[in-house]
Every structure is written in C-alpha cells, then in structure tokens.
C-alpha cells in the first residue's frame, strides 16, 4: 500500500504517469465520473484549510466517490486527547483513503505507519505539502510544456512556507533549473535546503529585491506571509506586506513569465495583476483538483 508524504515519494517517471493521467482527466472528465463509485475519502483536517479540503472533496466527488471527515481539531476526537495513531486506526475502518492536515510536522507519517488505508499528507505544519507541489508541477508542465530548463523565482516567506520547501525538493530532480530566492532577511530559506542544492550542484541566488530579478524569471512563485507560523504578532505585522506584485512590476517581466501562488492571496499580488494573461494562480487551483483526482485513482490502484 502506498501513501504520499513528500513529493519525493514518487519517482520522476511515476510523476509523469500521474500528470498524464491528470491531463487526460482534464480533457475527458466524463470518462472518470464513476471511477470511485462506492469509495470514501476521509478528510482529517486538524487545522482549518477550506481550500485544500474542498479541493480534495471536489476531486473525490468528481470521481463519483463520497467524502466524510472533520475540518478542525476542536470538532474531532483530538480535542479529547486522542493520538493520531489511534485516530487513523479508527478512520481505517470507515474510509478507503485519507487526506490529513495537521499543525504538527510529521503527523501524517505517524498516521501512515499505523494505517490500513492510503494516507495523503495534506500539509503538516511548516514541513511538507506534497499535493500543493503536485499541483504546482502539473501547472508548470501543462502551461510551460516542460519541467526543467527555467529560472524560477520564489518570493515571500521562504522560511516557514511549506509549499516552497516542497516545490524546491521536487524541482531539484529536473535538469537546468536556476532558483532565485527572494525574501526579507528574517524569512530566508532554511540552510538544510540550500545545503541540498549545493550537494546536487544546483545553482541559486538569494536576494531581497523582487524588482531587480523580474526580467530574468520564467516563473514567479509568490507566497503569503502566514500569521499562524509566527510566535510573535509584531514580526508578522512588520513582514506581511514586504512584497506586493503590481502591474508596474509585471512590466519588467518576460512576456511569457507565469505567476503562480498557492492561494489564498492577501496583499502580495495586487488585484490589477489578475487580468494579466501571465497570472496563472486561478488555473493552478483547477489543476489542483485534476492532480488530486489522479492521485486518488493512483493510490487506490483504480485503472480507467
């Protein structure tokens, strides 16, 4: 039985198959409309995340399956002090597959070790968020036509931003990628990631100014500074509006550069950018559903 804990759980070849399947789902949704009839997805969300949870639920419903679960730790047995290990043993009796989000890092891995059904890590603290990464990869592959040979800028909270950490880990396996890390000093990319890049001979640069690097980027991945990752409100207030992508800044970018964002967006992308054809973040949300559909089918071993 397979689980998904990190984007690296799948080989590059397996990811290619997954993305081909997602693209086929995009083109022929009706072919997959009953693929999961009678199957149940449990969404165990120990911290609120409407977007990811709804994306998983939409994916399962599109496949003809059903969903059950909880969306906040207070409404679950965790509030009574039940461990993750116990919860997943029980959920294994109710559902065929489980998507778990947890504020503690490594919680889905603990669940997977005790589970009788496939577990998908739907985000664990500041650690990993593999389905967001699969979404990002599918969006890049579908819209750019390739995974590799580009310069990607990652901007905002690179310290706590799990989407960024997961994406970098996944992109490391493709050829010819140059990373540009754009962040304030306090939210710099952690050393364990730059260490890995150095070990693999992958080039990167760290800058503070977004404007200065705009012309060289093929992709710009914007992130939100997340309040829930800070222990200190003062730091959050000081850093939350450090970067704002505006139409003026977009003028400096290449005509085919794509802007990605895991959403929700707050102030970091001005709404005037939404109408720019290079703004890909809402299409990205749609690709998120397709890739989750492909993932559910793959983990359940269902061939259509």
């Amino acid at each position, binding site marked *: 039985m397979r689980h998904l804990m990190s984007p690296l759980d799948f080989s590059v070849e397996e990811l290619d198959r997954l993305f081909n399947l997602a693209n086929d789902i995009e083109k022929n949704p009706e072919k997959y409309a009953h693929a999961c009839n009678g199957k149940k997805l449990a969404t165990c969300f120990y911290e609120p995340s409407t977007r990811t949870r709804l994306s998983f639920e939409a994916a399962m419903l599109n496949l003809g399956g059903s969903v059950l679960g909880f969306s906040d730790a207070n409404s679950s047995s965790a509030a009574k002090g039940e*461990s*993750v*290990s116990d919860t997943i043993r029980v959920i294994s009796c109710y559902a065929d597959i489980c998507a778990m989000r*947890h*504020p*503690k*890092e*490594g*919680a889905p*891995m*603990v669940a997977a070790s005790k589970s009788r059904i496939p577990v998908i890590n739907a985000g*664990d*603290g*500041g*650690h990993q968020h593999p389905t967001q990464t699969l979404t990002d990869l599918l969006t890049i592959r579908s819209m750019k036509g390739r995974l590799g040979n580009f310069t990607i800028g990652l901007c905002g909270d690179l310290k706590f931003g799990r989407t960024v950490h997961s994406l970098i880990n996944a992109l490391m396996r493709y050829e010819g990628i140059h990373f540009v890390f754009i962040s304030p000093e306090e939210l710099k990319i952690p050393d*364990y990631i730059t*260490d890995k890049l150095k070990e693999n001979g992958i080039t990167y640069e760290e800058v503070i100014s977004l404007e200065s690097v705009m012309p060289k980027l093929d992709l710009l991945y914007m992130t939100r500074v997340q309040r829930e990752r800070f222990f200190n409100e003062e730091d959050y207030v000081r850093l939350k509006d450090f970067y704002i992508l505006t139409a003026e800044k977009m003028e400096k970018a290449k005509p085919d550069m794509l802007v990605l964002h895991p959403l929700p967006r707050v102030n970091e992308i001005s709404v005037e950018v939404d109408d720019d054809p290079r703004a890909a973040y809402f299409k990205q949300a749609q690709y998120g559903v397709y890739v989750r559909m492909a993932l559910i089918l793959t983990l359940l071993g269902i061939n259509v």
Partner: protein
Amino acid sequence: MLNVGKIEEGFVLDHIEAGKSLTLYYNLGLDKKDCTVAMIMNAKSGKMGKKDILKVECSIEDLNMDILAVVDHNITVNVVKDGEIVEKKELVLPREIKGVFKCKNPRCITSIEQGLPHIFVLADEKKEVYRCKYCEEKYSQRVKTVVQ
C-alpha cells in the same frame, strides 16, 4: 597524579573531549544503571591536551555504541575482561538512533503524540548530520536533551 584502580569487567572510554564525560554519563543512561563509574575529567593528554575518561564496571553488553558514535566518534572504547583490555571497538555512525535524543522542534509531532519514540536518521554521513525522522529538524549537540 590521581590514581583510579583497574576494573575487572566493563569498559574504559578514553579520549573523550574534556568536559563532555558528564553529558555522556547521562546519554548512556549510566545514572539509571547499577554499576560503578569513575569519571576522570581534565586528564593530561599528549594528543588532545586535556581529555576525559570514563571507567564503567558493568556487563559489556550494556554499552550502547550507537549513542557513543553520535556524541563523538573519536572516543576510544576499550573492553575489559578479567582486568585486561581484550578489545578496542571502532565506532560507526548508526543509520538511525531511537529513543535517545529528543527533537527540540516545538512543531514536531513527537512533542504531543503519546508513546512515539524520538528517532533521528543519518541524513549526511560526511557532515555527521542527523535529522528527526518526522519533521527533519537537524539534531544539534548544543541543544540536545536526553529522553527521560
């Protein structure tokens, strides 16, 4: 010169970095074992200037070599039987170390999940870097604590 007598059976840990023997005493769980321990601190050493030595009288199976390797793999381990050194053991970095060091990341699942062992996995052999199996936090000797 301070003299500490021979031990009959057990082990002598030599070339411990000066000042580290007390930490090692706790890391090896010697405070919980019923055995005689001699701790020699700041002994003169030709090689190291100053060093610590631990002499432990107990069954040799009681020594967790993995812990020693993680704390400092330059320590010399002499196994003693019938008052004589019968073997010098080489320390090898373990792939995984379980239930010895505690993950200090407050966001790690090990901070709340009952009965979950703290496990560190060797992530980089050259740099001797261990990371928490669950959250990938780097194990740092400076902030280490012993799981009680």
